[in-house]
């Protein structure tokens, strides 16, 4: 599951597509206007609905289409990442990244790496098995 921003990472993924680059098909991309729009609850909800890993990606700091959205997002993630770690979620399942509109190669590598890492640890049975 990948939450990406409309202006950089989605455009980067689009570039990877139009350049006919191949990458692992396991990712489901959800486009949002900005990384600042990504509520931590989205990530929890993704895990709850069965995602084995979550990737969050947006514009590099300073490049936000809305000037400051990714700075706000970065603050939130600093808190959220530590909270998830403290709860005991394996940090190989939750990834954060900056991918710009021209970085199709970075996007392809990122997806391949993240998918490979999650395939190694397998499905998120701890969460799915909660009853």
């Amino acid at each position: 599951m990948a939450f990406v921003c409309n202006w950089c990472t989605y455009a980067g993924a689009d570039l990877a597509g139009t350049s006919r680059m191949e990458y692992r098909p396991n990712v489901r991309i959800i486009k949002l206007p900005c990384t600042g729009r990504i509520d931590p609850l989205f990530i929890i909800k993704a895990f709850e609905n069965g995602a084995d890993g979550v990737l969050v990606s947006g514009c590099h700091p300073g490049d936000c289409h809305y000037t400051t959205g990714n700075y706000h997002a970065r603050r939130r993630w600093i808190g959220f990442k530590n909270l998830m770690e403290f709860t005991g979620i394996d940090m190989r399942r939750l990834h954060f990244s900056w991918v710009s509109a021209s970085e199709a190669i970075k996007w392809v590598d990122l997806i391949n790496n993240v998918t490979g890492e999650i395939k190694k640890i397998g499905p998120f049975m701890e969460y799915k098995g909660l009853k």
Partner: protein
Amino acid sequence: MEEQLRNKAKELLETGCVKVVIGYGWNRTKTRTAPVFITRPEDADRLVWNPLCVNNLSVYLTRKFKDIQALGKPAIVAKGCDIRNIVVLITEAQVRREDVVIIGMTCGGVVYRQELWKGELKPEIMPTKCANCGVRNPRVADFVIGERSSFTPPEAPTGMVFDKIKAIDAMTPAERWNFWIGEFSRCIKCYACRQVCPLCYCERCITEKNMPQWIETSAHPRGNLSWNLTRAMHLVGRCTFCGECERACPVNIPLNLMNQKMIQVVDEAFAFKSGYDEKTHPPMIVFSPDDKEGFIK
């Protein structure tokens, strides 16, 4: 101290300076203190002050309590730690500083559970926050009642909560996961933590929004995890570690651990402690281009 407090409340009500005094009073059996709302000067003698005054009354300043707001301008009896919550409410534009009269009480600590009170205040029955308290002399107050306390908090914070956080940090992710799932599995979704929290003042909580249903409302482990994580996340950079959520929890989930951990994270990442300055914005609504992280690739 109690006498001074009653006189002050009487004076404020008689002059018409405030319309209601929010303070502590005895319950019927005089074993616990309960919030009282004094509107007539002759009732001011119902106010009490002792180490059983553990409630954080700042919750009554929020918009959760419209009927109390309707009474008129309040004066509030507050310990140093309660004032930190009022300060956060001021920074978040929930109260204006000039709209509330704060009667600060110098405090020697309170009891963690009121049933432990045997007439003497010992460190064993005090919560962790009292052992590390830096606000026994209230900072932002209109009046301060009581003698100055000379207590200085220890250099490194001590107490059960801090020890447990260290123990959890030392665990493997799988152990941490099992620990928290075990704790959260007891949650019955009574939302007492939210009701008692002075900083949970949303008129419509995220858990009550059902289109879409963000958080499952049944007491199922999956929904329990979502609820407790979301509440912890909403308190990042705001929580003052008043400990009311854990005290109110009927199934004793150690919410203090999670909240104190996030306080430490915020302090490390943004060098911010909530509730000390009513002019600084909380860290999650501002940003700095120089924020440091090592995990965004």
